[in-house]
Structures are given as structure tokens and as C-alpha cells.
């Protein structure tokens, strides 16, 4: 399989009034052709910032301190705003959690799609653009595309807006689609619709998807591979089944155990004690050490190295060091 995107040892910090937030501290992953990669983590894990850094969309005060983002053989971390604009939408597209704030309220939905086409496909005529926009609206399951074309975002419901966002994101057939919590703001039944739509479209247009989410249910229904992040650092990655059924890292395990199982009744739910670390003064060792039931002295002092369990499955945890005998989880 062909590698589309390579993120190497990414470090991102955000300078704020209350101090420097070390949002991402050394995260690496690859994205292959036509796969879905899920990046899982809670708020403050750095999952969103990592992807904003890839797209050059860091918030004010944010900057990449170290690391490379290799897209089609080029390191795009030092690209200018103009160069990034040619990549955004054409090669890599992004959809966000809140479709209302990511659509322009003063432009019709049709204009927002054709604007994207105008920017990246200047060779198209106005009529071709309009036809393409109608085709896209139809593809994302918006009924009466001809009528909806001239309407404004506020005339759409939440689920429909997210469909519009997807149609804009896919307008120029990008190789990569980054979906940042695409269904978090939506109701369960609408979430199911959007997830089905994304799966269907992925087969049709053959893009790779990076889906960023905290919902492990969404992960297990969408992803081929999973990267787990915590406190700005890489925790575990592997194939979907490896991460869910041969879980290595205590954090991943705790996360999976803290979701109630609908099939069982009268279970005792596990909960990870404590609170995520403050990334203004992140812990020296493993960020999860303070909350980990199997924490060792080394975990509090040294950042764990990565241990490999299969070609695809890696975890960053001292329990798998030779010196921690019999430390491995089940």
C-alpha cells in the first residue's frame, strides 16, 4: 500500500497568556492509500492540534517546534500560506465538529461549493461548476439539490449542514479527508446517517480518511487503524482489532473499560481515576503515570520508549521493557 502522508515526531506548542501549552510532544504516524485512520483521545490529548498543525491551521500563538509532515514527498511544515491554500481542499480537506461555524452564513451553499471549484479547478466553466456542485449535493444525499443550491446554511438542519461540509470537502476529490469530530455535535440517529454516508463515499471516491474522535463506538464502526493519544503524546497504535482486542497500553485499556456494554446488565463499570495533566507543566515521565494503576517508579521520571508487538501494533509503555518482568497486560 502506498503511503500518502507521513507525520514525523511532531512537537506543537501554543503560547497563551497563562503560559506555553505543550500541546503535542512527539507524535508520529503514517496514512496509507484508501484507509481510514482513527486518532483517538480525550480533550487535551493533542489529537485536534496535531491535525490542525498538518493543515497549517494552528490557533493564534500556536507553532510547530519540531517535526515533519510529508505529503507526496514534500515536507509541508514550512510552506507559505499561499502554498498551503493550494493544498487545502485540493489534496487534503478537512471537516469540523460544528458545521454551522465552518460554513459562511452570508453565502449560499451552492456558491460555497463553486468557490472551492473556482479556486482549485480554474479550467472549469461556470456551468460545469454548477453541474458539479449539484452532483456533489446529490452524492451526499441532499434531496432537491437544484432547490437547495440557492439556500443559505441556516436553512439546513445540523445533519444536512454536515452533509454540505462533506460535499465541499470532496469537491476537488482530495486524496485525504481529515474529519475532526464530525459527528460529536449531532444526535445519535443523525450520527448514524453521517457515518454511513462517509463509508459509502470513501468507497466511491477512494480517499483516505483521518477521523479524529473521542467516541470508541465511532472508531470501531469506521476505522481500519487506530492511533491513541494522551496528554500530547503517542500512546498506542495498531490495527482496529489489535487495539480493541489485544490492548497493550493501560490507558487504552482503561478507556475501553469505562464504556458500559449494552449487552450486559449489572456490570461494574471501570473508571480511570484522576484528571488529565496540565500541559503547561507536563509531567516528566509518562503523562498517564499519575492515573495508571500499574505505574512504576520509572514511569514518573522517564518518558517511555515505544515497543513493537507486530508490524502494525506499537505502544509506548515501560511495562513492556525487559526489566519490568511480567509486566505485560493480558
Amino acid at each position: 500500500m502506498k503511503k500518502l502522508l507521513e507525520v514525523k515526531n511532531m512537537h506543537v506548542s501554543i503560547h497563551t497568556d497563562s503560559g506555553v501549552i505543550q500541546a503535542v510532544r512527539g507524535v508520529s504516524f503514517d496514512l496509507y492509500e484508501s484507509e481510514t485512520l482513527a486518532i483517538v483521545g480525550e480533550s487535551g490529548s493533542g489529537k485536534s492540534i496535531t491535525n490542525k498543525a498538518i493543515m497549517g491551521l494552528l490557533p493564534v500563538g500556536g507553532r510547530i517546534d519540531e517535526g515533519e509532515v510529508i505529503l507526496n514527498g514534500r515536507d509541508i511544515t514550512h510552506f507559505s500560506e499561499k502554498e498551503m491554500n493550494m493544498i487545502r481542499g485540493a489534496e487534503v480537506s478537512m471537516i469540523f465538529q460544528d458545521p454551522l461555524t465552518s460554513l459562511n452564513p452570508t453565502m449560499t451553499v451552492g456558491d460555497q461549493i463553486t468557490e472551492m471549484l473556482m479556486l482549485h479547478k480554474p479550467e472549469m466553466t461556470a456551468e460545469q461548476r454548477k453541474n458539479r456542485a449539484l452532483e456533489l449535493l446529490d452524492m451526499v444525499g441532499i434531496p432537491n439539490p437544484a432547490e437547495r443550491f440557492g439556500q443559505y446554511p441556516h436553512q439546513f438542519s445540523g445533519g444536512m449542514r454536515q452533509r454540505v461540509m462533506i460535499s465541499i470537502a470532496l469537491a476537488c476529490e482530495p486524496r485525504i479527508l481529515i474529519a475532526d469530530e464530525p459527528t460529536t455535535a449531532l444526535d445519535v440517529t443523525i450520527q448514524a446517517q453521517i457515518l454511513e454516508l462517509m463509508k459509502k463515499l470513501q468507497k466511491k471516491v477512494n480517499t483516505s480518511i483521518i477521523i479524529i474522535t473521542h467516541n470508541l463506538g465511532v472508531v470501531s464502526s469506521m476505522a481500519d487503524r487506530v492511533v491513541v493519544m494522551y496528554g500530547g503524546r503517542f500512546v498506542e497504535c495498531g490495527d482496529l482489532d489489535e487495539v480493541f482486542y489485544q490492548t497493550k497500553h493501560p490507558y487504552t485499556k482503561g478507556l475501553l473499560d469505562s464504556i458500559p456494554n449494552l449487552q450486559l446488565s449489572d456490570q461494574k463499570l471501570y473508571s480511570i481515576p484522576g484528571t488529565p495533566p496540565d500541559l503547561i507543566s507536563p509531567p516528566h515521565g509518562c503523562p498517564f503515570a499519575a492515573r495508571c494503576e500499574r505505574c512504576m517508579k520509572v514511569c514518573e521520571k522517564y518518558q517511555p520508549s515505544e515497543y513493537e508487538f507486530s508490524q502494525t501494533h506499537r505502544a509506548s509503555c515501560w511495562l513492556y521493557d525487559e526489566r519490568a518482568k511480567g509486566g505485560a497486560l493480558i
Partner: protein
Amino acid sequence: MNAQMNIPQELFTPAGDNTAKQEHIARQHHSAFYDGWIRLRKNKAAVVCAVIILIIAVMSIVVPMTSKYTYFDTDYANKIAKPSAEHPFGTDLFGRDQWVRIWYGTGISLLIGLAAALINLLIGVFYGAISAIMGGKVDAIMQRIIEVLVGIPSLIIVILFMMALPPGIWTIIAAMSVTGWVNMARLVRAKILNLKSQEFVLAAQLLGTSTWKIILRHLIPNTISVIVIQVMFAIPSAIFTEAFLSFIGVGLSEPKASLGVLINNGYKALRAAPFLLIYPAIAIILIMICFSIVGDGLRDAFDPRMKH
């Protein structure tokens, strides 16, 4: 990798109970006001402007008190004198020392601005708070009254006032206060309406907190930043209104001086003595800019959400 291999074996043992650290808050502890103060201090422009305002205020009191000239002593032998060591800003058409008159006028302007802003504050906060807290019909009637007041051009009200009452500083202040509090009332009302529906106010209601306590403990403390910021913008606007009134000739009367009066006089003598216009103009511009920058700084510091 080598560094990692050197970690001693004995560290690979359970760390034991770590529950104490789990809920620890690493950040230094201070109130939201303190955080705002830190942000304000980092805003160099706002700090510089605040210092300038302070210096101007002190000078406007000290200079007229210590100078050997007064703002009203005329010296016809020395009319329209150019700036010199004796008269740093020169003298005006009546030979009065412009240096003293500018500082005196600045003082009067600041006094008018401050007094007008404080009266706006009192009426506006009270009116806005009652309107928002009572709600329903009372709110509707009070809002209609505000709309009527906004509908009448405030300049007409002010000019009518100035004609009806004896001229003087307090007439100007009273005239500007008739309509000046409207903005404050609207802001306070909006803020309290917004706070009223917030969950912490609902929680207080459910806990049996009396309406008065809710106002004093929950609503007012969360409105203070809005009020302070609005006052910082109301002061320069009152100073400017007064200057405008004096400039069109309905403000203070001679020999009293405000910056507006001085600019008016300077404008009349523009050809013969441009310095009579330039110095008071610089003073008013400086005051306006400084207050605006400090106001902006306060807003960014205490209401950081407004920035975005």
C-alpha cells in the same frame, strides 16, 4: 536509546499509591481578576497610556496651584506672546498664560468626563439591573423609555438644557447625563439577562437563595468587568462631547476654560497664533487616545472572549 538503557533496574517496580497526585492542580492559584491583571500588565501600550493619564491628571491639579499665573489674570501688554521660557505655551488674546490655562482646562475636562461617567454609571447600572431582573412588563416599559430617549437627538436635549439652566460645569454634566446613561443601562441589562439564564444562577435559585442575594452575590460581581470597561469608554466620550459643545459656543463661559473652550479660542486666532490651537488639540487627542487604549486593554484583559 543508550540513555534509556542506563535506567536502573530498581526503578522498574510499582510506584505504589499515587492517588494523592491524581486530583492535584499544578497551576498556581489565583482569582480571575488576578489573571486579568496579569494580562493587562503584559499589554505595554495600555500600561503606558494609564501612566500618561495619571501624569496628566496630577499635572492638571498641581500646575494651576503652583504657577505664579492664574487662568484668569489678563496682561494686555503681553497679548499673543509666542512660547518662551516665561510662558512655555505662550499667551492668548487677553495675555493669559496658556500653560496654566491648558492644565486648568485639562482638569476641568477630566472632571467633566469623570463626573459624567460616574453619573452614567449610577443611573445606567441601576436602571439596567432593575429592567433585567424584573423582566416582563416592567422590562418592556423601561426599554420603551430608553428607545424614546435614543430617538430624540441627544444634542438637542443637551443644547436645550444648556439654554434653560445657568451656564457652568455642573449644567454641562447634568445635560450630558440626561441621555448618557442609556448605553450603560443597555449593556448591564444584556449582561444580566445573559447571566440570569446561566446554570449557576438556576442552581442558586434551587438552593433557596433569595433574590437579593442572587443579585448581590451572583449577578453584580459578574457584571463588574462590563461596567468598568464601559466607564473607561464613557469618560473620553464625555470629554469629547463637552469640547464639542464649547466649540460651538454653548459650553463653559470665559474666563473658565476647558479644552473645548481653548480650542475654540485657538481656532479664532488660528492665523495669528497657531500654537493657541495646536497645544490644546494635542492635549485632547492624547487624552482621548490614552483612554481608548486603556479601555481596549481592560476589555481584552478582563473579557478575553470579546477578542475573537
